[in-house]
């Protein structure tokens, strides 16, 4: 069906979003960019100092570590985490026995507030009264060496990662919704042609998941660039800088050093990384309209 005045409708429907963007984000973003170039603290009004804040943060080893950690988490989240959600959706799509229970149970960790998840894991993995100590004892291992998973920088990064990476329920739901939209006749045709279940997944389902996979990767990456609460609740970026990421570094610069100029310089780096990631992912996954239509 041909829609008249398509451009007008697009404008009308996106208007609320654009207005909100202009009001809530645009003005603060301009401020963030400007004040990142200023000496701006709790005591002083912004005073232009050029790139000094950027030179300061890039000279700081902790900042470089925070970028590295952020990018590693983005990579893990956009690959392992999203793939796990997809794998779960592929299993649940076949509706094996108890699939509804599993689907609901797998969603539960995603609806628990992250602050509560943080507290739960901190207690669960406490080396004195958590689950590790009795497990260690059962395995007959040296009790003086019960691992302190959040407290020791050797394990902290992976322990923090484990608090979220396995819970891909939202991705599973998105994939399931997309799978439900695939025309059933395609599957029937494949079955008539003698395709095995794995062949159906490999040659029909997965190729049709490409766009939504890209969307999930984008969402996962963006979430990781701004991940804050669970890290703050569990390790606050420590021990040392082992779990420090950009939002925690920014938070500390703003609230502990009272240096808003520096914090906003971190914010600018965060925005640049975020935009770059979104554009890269779009380029990787999104099929161009022309290609899709076969033109």
């Amino acid at each position, binding site marked *: 069906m041909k829609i008249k005045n398509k451009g007008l409708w*697009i404008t009308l429907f996106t208007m609320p979003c654009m207005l909100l*963007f202009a009001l809530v984000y645009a003005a*603060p973003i301009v401020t963030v960019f400007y004040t990142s170039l200023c000496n701006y603290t*709790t005591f002083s009004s912004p005073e232009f100092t050029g790139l000094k804040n950027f030179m300061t943060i890039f000279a700081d080893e902790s900042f470089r570590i925070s970028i590295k950690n952020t990018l590693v988490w983005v990579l893990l989240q956009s690959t392992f985490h999203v793939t796990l959600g997809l794998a779960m959706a592929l299993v649940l799509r076949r509706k094996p026995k108890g699939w509804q229970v599993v689907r609901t149970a797998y969603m539960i960790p995603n609806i628990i507030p992250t602050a509560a998840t943080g507290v739960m894991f901190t207690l669960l993995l*406490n080396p004195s009264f958590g689950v590790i100590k009795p497990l260690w004892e059962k395995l007959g291992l040296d009790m003086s060496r019960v691992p*302190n998973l959040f407290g020791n920088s050797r394990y902290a990064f992976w322990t923090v990662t484990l608090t979220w990476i396995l819970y891909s329920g939202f991705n599973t739901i998105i994939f399931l919704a997309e799978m439900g939209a695939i025309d059933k006749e395609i599957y029937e045709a494949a079955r008539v042609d003698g395709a095995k279940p794995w062949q159906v997944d490999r040659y029909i389902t997965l190729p049709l998941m490409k766009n939504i996979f890209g969307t999930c990767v984008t969402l996962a990456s963006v979430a990781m660039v701004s991940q804050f609460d669970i890290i703050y609740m569990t390790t*606050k970026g420590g021990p040392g*800088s082992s779990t420090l990421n950009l939002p925690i570094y920014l*938070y500390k610069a703003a*609230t502990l050093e009272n240096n808003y100029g520096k914090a906003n310089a971190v914010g600018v780096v965060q925005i640049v990384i975020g935009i770059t990631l979104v554009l890269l992912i779009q380029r990787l996954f999104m099929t161009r309209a022309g290609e899709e239509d076969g033109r």
Partner: protein
Amino acid sequence: MKKKTVSRFFSAVLTGVMVLSLTACGNSAGSGTETGSESVAAGESTGQEAEDSSGDKIVLDVINYHVGTDYAAEYYTYLFEAFQQTEEGKNVEFHFEEIPTTDAFNQKIKLLISSGDLPDIVFNGGNNITELAARSGKVADLTPYFEEDPEWKALFDETSLEFNTVDGKIYGVPVSKEISYIYYNKELFAQAGIEAPEVSYATWEEFFEACDKLKAAGIIPVGMDTADSGWLTNLWMSALIGTDGEAGNTWMNSMYPTDFNTPEVEAAAETIQRMFQEYTTADAVGGKYDPMATHFFNGEVAMFPNGPWMIPDFSETEKAPEGFYDKVGIMLMPGKGMEMVPTPGDMVGASEEEKIRAAVAFLKFETKPENQIKALEMTGLQPVSNDLEIPSELTQSDPLMAQVLEIQNQAEVTYGQNQAYWYQNTIDTFSTELPELAYGNITPGEFCEKLSESAKKNQE
């Protein structure tokens, strides 16, 4: 072509919206962790309504973190209500915003200092807030109010007022003094066959000999922590530095130190490393204060550094087992050392003269000798005024508190502690680098180097 351009434009806008949502943290740093609720004392209405309905009443905005399970919640409830019964307070109404936890409160106050929207009475949760507020010019200079009431001024010693003075002007009204020492479990000491000293171990060597005996008896000698600000470890470390000769004591009494690579600090860091590795609980590294206190209450740890505000917890059956109060003894840090710092005082954020006077009246009421004694009895906060007459019945009703009042006079060495004297980001570095020190991932020298680097960031 046109369609493609429109499509690209909207695609770019939507991408922008998604990515710029990342900056939410950057734009509102600090606000995310705050939770607050509002109420009006006595008026049962809010803000403007309270003012309207109360005619010529003066409404004072207060952000109160002494709420919920806070050790002083009950005392402050009394204080606000009792003030409204006085001549000075009968026309005052309080408009409260409640923020549980000092940490969330401090973050909120900092944001308000920055935005200039401070409440009329600014409670002081530490973390260098006095200096921040004073330098921002958003709190009232209280010097004239002290000068016009010499009797009130005489309640405070010079050190306490000086601690609340910035550029020659007094901005904070100190309400108590902070002291800390060691609590020990008499039962566990007896089990290990140790006789606790009357006042303190003469040296740290003697202290560690006792630790070894406790350890040999299967008892964990000391409580330590690293999370949040590493409060307990901070008290041990401050004591190790503060009792290490004149140089150490001078260093530990200095405000905002930036050089941590001194022999005394490095030696203290080395001892702290040993304490983590040999004398404390497995969960001390990465652990917060509360679980560590529970270890002490449960008789799993023999010695615990802290201040008198902890005493009410000993007889609180929700926190400690029945009869625990009687098992606790008190000693000073080795070498008769005791942490003692004036507290950062409460400030006035009001700008209208009428409100400033009402807020000052409340602060005067808060620091009345009777209320200082009341605070001591209800919360364990040590009176800021010297030579107050302590009621004799305290010895009967709270013998531990009476012992605290007595033992503090026997301290021969006093020093500060990091939460009062260090830059806030340095306290955070202390907390995040302690685990690295504890596991030997960094040397004591490197630990001190990291503290120095962190402190120097404040001078960039």
